[in-house]
């Protein structure tokens, strides 16, 4: 062991370490310093948006989490737990306290109260903004711990920590301001895995219980906990199949499952799901299976092998059959919920598009494009298979975990963009194992002594196993090391270059792709200075200050959380998307004629309608571009009234100019987007800069709505729903009557011009 340590110290990247790293306490100190620096780098690289813009909550979901956190801080935990929110999903409301994962909010709340206790006057917003970067430092540390369980080389752990700290795959969900569940969940994921490995290695109830505790925290924080719920049983199952059942596994798994399930059931949103849904059944099944195996082990030790064979076939087969039948029966009987739609879409990527358009409409639920892997992981993506291969070489229990994790993580990451996040930790760990192996081998300054290496090898259990495959061993596991200084320098130099490029790439990706708050848009002035386009907040602030406190705002669900968070007004639908029909209702109102939409809006007491329009600025994420999803979702509920085909031109094109289909032109969304827009341009030059279409001079006429506010760059347009007409006419009649009066004057003024246009 002592020799191994000495070798490790020599193999750490810097030469400084070689001289200093001989004694234990210096090494510990250096590790602590390096880890602290990695954590600092992880935090620092996530602060682009704060420096460039301000301390602001990003995007959509974080605004809800922020609002919930403010509620928690203001009203205390029990109020939060029982929170019924009547300001969302009007008129249904939402049992918010029971339908969210409270881990994130409670974490920030605890930090807030702790700081307040120390009389540090910190704004809750700043805690929320900086929570994700702070936790990324912890994630790096957790990756260090997890990797250290895999290999004896401590440089692997440090490399894994560094990779974890700056890899864009993780940064994408944890920049400052990205106050989402993933902000803390990835740390919990990695740390729970570390505790699981520790528990498994030691067969310790203490570590198993700790694992269950953090699993409970994870369940409280993110819906992705199902990943742990499935991966740990899978790992156990694979181990049993490999004939590696041991009391360590039994103790670790049963402790984790029993305590972890109890812990997870404390969250109202999870409740009895762990015993009632198919997603959780593997964990329960493996729990039962382990009991069986343990029992069999006992029986085998007690009875002769001949009888044991019979017992095995009859007993095991019978119980397995009964268990399976029971599961099928309970599922058929409705006691256990079958796989949910979101889960199906993991197996069949086309499933959601056909059956649940609302899931497919979210960009992060799309299948991953291949370049995304390189974009998010850069060089780690080619180090990753090498690392997994090295796990095969050692193939102890914990390496099996990495292999299983790598396999499933890769699959899921390929299916859904957002699951790249769950793949990233294992990529970092595996890549760090591979990279450290390379560096350990090539960064030995002294030429290796044969005896030294043999000793090291013999101390390494995994190496023995690998030595059975002689051919492979000679290529991958060097017997003695590298003698030639040139090849050492070359590989070390190349590796350094790759690492530098990696850092550069991560910084570039973080800075360019993941650091935009998306609430605030940045553009450049002609003189190169930054110009901030702040239309969202302008409009939300206007709503907040100048409308009634309980004015209901109808908008597409994307903006629900932002309206709730920034404008503080009740909304019809939001990003929670728990009620598909309600969303479809809004979709129907947006995609129908005014005469159809108006009664819907009246029934839902809508006061204002908010649309996002990017035509003036060329902002492509606007509602007209999302419009087809609204149509599809509405069509899912009202196939007779809303038809996607009608929104295309006869030639099958999606157009907004003069050639647009009649249904399109008469839809509320089209009218609201282009109302009055042409008057901004000289005649004949009205242009939509997103869809680069020339628009007709005559803006669409709105009868039942009136323009209430339009932001500076027209990104947000707010319309007020007119009250019923005083004379009982419909709005079209009333409006045309009013226009009738004005028309004469208008014609008198510029008669010839109107004629020419017509």
């Amino acid at each position, binding site marked *: 062991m002592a020799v191994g340590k000495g070798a490790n110290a020599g193999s750490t990247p810097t030469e400084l370490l070689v001289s200093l790293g001989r004694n234990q306490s210096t090494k510990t100190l250096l590790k602590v310093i390096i880890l602290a620096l990695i954590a600092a780098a992880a935090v620092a690289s996530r602060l682009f948006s704060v420096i460039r813009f301000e301390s602001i909550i990003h995007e959509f979901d974080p605004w809800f989490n922020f609002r919930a956190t403010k509620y928690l801080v203001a009203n205390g935990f029990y109020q939060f737990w029982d929170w019924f929110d009547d300001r969302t999903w009007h008129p249904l409301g939402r049992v918010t306290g029971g339908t969210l994962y409270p881990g994130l909010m409670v974490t920030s709340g605890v930090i807030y109260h702790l700081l307040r206790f120390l009389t540090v006057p910190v704004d809750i917003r700043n805690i929320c903004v900086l929570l994700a970067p702070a936790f990324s430092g912890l994630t790096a540390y957790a990756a260090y711990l997890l990797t250290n369980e895999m290999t004896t080389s401590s440089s692997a752990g440090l490399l894994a920590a560094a990779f974890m700290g700056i890899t864009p795959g993780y940064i994408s969900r944890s920049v400052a301001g990205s106050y989402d569940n993933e902000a803390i969940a990835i740390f919990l994921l990695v740390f729970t895995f570390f505790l699981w490995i520790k528990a498994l290695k030691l067969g310790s109830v203490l570590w198993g219980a700790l694992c269950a505790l953090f699993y409970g925290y994870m369940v409280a924080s993110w819906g992705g906990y199902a990943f742990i719920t499935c991966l740990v049983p899978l790992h156990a199952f694979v181990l049993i199949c490999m004939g590696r059942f041991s009391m360590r596994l039994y103790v670790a798994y049963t402790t984790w499952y029993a305590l972890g399930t109890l812990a997870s059931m404390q969250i109202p949103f999870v409740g009895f799901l762990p015993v009632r849904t198919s997603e959780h059944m593997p964990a329960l099944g493996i729990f039962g299976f382990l009991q069986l195996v343990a029992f069999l082990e006992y029986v085998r030790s007690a009875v002769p092998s001949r009888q044991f064979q019979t017992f095995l076939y009859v007993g095991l087969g019978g119980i397995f059959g009964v268990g399976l039948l029971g599961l099928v029966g309970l599922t058929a009987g409705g006691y256990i919920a079958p796989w949910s739609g979101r889960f199906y879409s993991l197996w069949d990527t086309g499933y959601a598009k056909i059956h649940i358009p609302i899931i497919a409409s979210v960009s992060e639920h799309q299948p991953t494009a291949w370049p995304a892997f390189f974009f998010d992981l850069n060089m780690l993506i080619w180090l990753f298979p090498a690392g997994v291969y090295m796990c095969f070489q050692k193939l102890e229990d914990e390496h099996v975990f990495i292999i299983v994790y790598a396999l499933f993580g890769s699959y899921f990451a390929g299916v859904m963009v957002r699951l790249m996040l769950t793949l990233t930790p294992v990529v970092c760990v595996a890549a760090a194992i591979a990279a450290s192996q390379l560096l350990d081998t090539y960064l030995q300054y002294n030429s290796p002594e044969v005896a030294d290496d043999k000793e090291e090898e013999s101390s390494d259990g995994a190496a023995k196993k690998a030595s059975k495959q002689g051919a492979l061993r000679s290529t991958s596991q060097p017997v003695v090391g590298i003698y030639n200084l040139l090849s050492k320098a070359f590989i070390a130099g190349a590796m350094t270059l790759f690492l530098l490029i990696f850092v550069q790439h991560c910084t570039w990706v973080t800075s360019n792709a993941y650091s935009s708050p998306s609430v605030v848009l940045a553009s450049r002035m002609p003189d190169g200075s930054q110009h901030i386009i702040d239309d969202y907040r302008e409009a939300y602030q206007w709503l907040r200050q100048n409308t009634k406190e309980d004015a209901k705002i109808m908008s597409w669900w994307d903006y629900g959380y932002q309206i709730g968070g920034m404008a503080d007004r009740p909304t019809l639908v939001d990003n929670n998307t728990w009620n598909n029909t309600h969303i479809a209702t809004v979709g129907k109102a947006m995609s129908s004629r005014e005469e159809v939409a108006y009664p819907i809006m009246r029934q839902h007491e809508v006061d204002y309608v908010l649309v996002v329009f990017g035509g003036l600025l060329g902002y492509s994420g606007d509602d007209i571009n999302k419009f087809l999803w609204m149509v599809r979702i509405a069509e899912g509920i009202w196939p007779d009234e809303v038809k996607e085909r009608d929104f295309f031109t006869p030639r099958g094109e999606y157009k907004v100019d003069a050639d647009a289909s009649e249904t399109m032109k008469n839809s509320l969304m089209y009218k609201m987007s282009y109302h*009055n827009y042409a*008057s901004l341009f000289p005649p004949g030059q009205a242009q939509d800069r997103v869809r680069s279409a020339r628009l007709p001079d005559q803006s669409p006429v709105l009868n039942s709505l009136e323009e*209430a506010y339009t932001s500076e760059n027209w990104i947000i347009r707010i319309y007020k729903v007119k009250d019923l007409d005083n004379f009982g006419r419909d709005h079209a009649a009333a409006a045309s009557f009013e226009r009738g009066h004005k028309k004469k004057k208008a014609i008198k003024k510029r008669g010839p011009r109107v004629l020419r246009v017509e």
Partner: protein
Amino acid sequence: MKFTGIAAACLSLLSTACANTSAAGSASSKVVLPSTFKPPQVFNNANLVHIISLEKNYVKESINVLIENASPDPQDEYFLPFTSEQMEKIGGFEVKDRKNSGIVGFTIDAVEFDPSRQLDSDIQFYRIKLPAPLSPKDQQTLGISFYYLHALKPLPASIEQTDKQYLTYAFSAYCHSAYPTLKQKTEIKLPSADVPDYTKIAGNGETKEFPIKQGSKLTYGPFPEVPAGASSPATVRYEFNKPVTHVSQLERDVEVSHWGGNVAFEERYTLFHYGAKLSSQFSRVKWAQSQYFSPQTFALKEMKFVLGAGSKDAYFTDVIGNVSTSRFRVTKREAVLELKPRYPIFGDWKYPFTVGWNADSSNYLKKSGSKFLLKVPFIEGPKQAEGVEYEHVDVRVVLPEGAEAVNFYTTAPETSIIEHSVDIVRTYLDTVGRTVLTIKARNLVDELRDRELIVSYEYSTAAALRKPFVIFTSTMTVFVGMWLLSKLDVSFSTK
């Protein structure tokens, strides 16, 4: 520097001022009188000129009156009547001697009536106590000035976005007085000559009809003798195509840091435009066009804060974060913070916001031994051509932890200050908490921007060293505690 000289003078002044305030309990102590009270008819107004200035979005009135003691005894209490509605809106009440500015020491008190009894008239009074009693037949010229807030009304109350805004103001052609007035006139100064409506009253002498309109000025009078309490209601409606900005609440924090050598200012405004509402909804097209063709509008679209020299790190935020449309220019002599609200503020629209900035404490703080003297402006709101009015102003001066013997003196009108208190606030790892002086004032206007607040306090070196010491010891305790814990063996195995 000039400030040093003032500092010495102020120190001596402070002791007297503070003695005054502490004796009176509160600066705005009200005199409670029985409801049957009538001011004794001991004065005559020999000559009175009443100037109503409507050039800004609040009303400034000044009454220059030559008073004469008509009683056989020396008198020192002059009463000025107001309606209870006016009493709510009045602010910045000040009295000077017009002839001799050396005469100071007018004490002004709002007279309150015993609330237990029903009042038969709506009249209330301000009592002006002359510095020296006026002997019989003697005369003195008083210059009385005050402001009315929120006294203007738009007419029509709602207009189109591109229309001009007109305001009305109701007043009396005769100046309200508790004494007979021998000769008087009322002048109304308006922002422009566009005055479509005003009350006309019958004239006397060679003038047939009042008022006489000269450009943007209306003059009622001169009138012959008028008995006490006479009134002649009149209104004027005039163009005021500028925002009518009303700050219902201004919270101003001044935080002094000795360690950082910094004075941090933060002001939170609850701003409201009480001018004409929009008769139809806001149109962005029209707004964009009017920005090019006729930029003059009654919507508030920009504010300019002129801050003291050396101000830095200015910020402008509202509930949902930083407002990116602000500019901060620093020159040697001043720093200007130009703000554009997120949206133009029309009548009936609200816009609460926060601004803040830092400044070097050497610009505001003077030291002599362990005594410190802080001199800051009482209010520093936006400098707008059309003016800004403040209904409630809370000035909070946060002094360092352990500051003692806090006294203050302000040149802001004494009648506007409602109350003041010294409390403790804990922030930034404080142990005993910081001393906070809170001054509440009401009905101020932006013309009073040059008024100062001077705070003196004592702050010892020991108090300054308290925090580093506390932090050092507590961190040490944590480390030692951790070290002791790590020495503890908590495992079950005995070995």
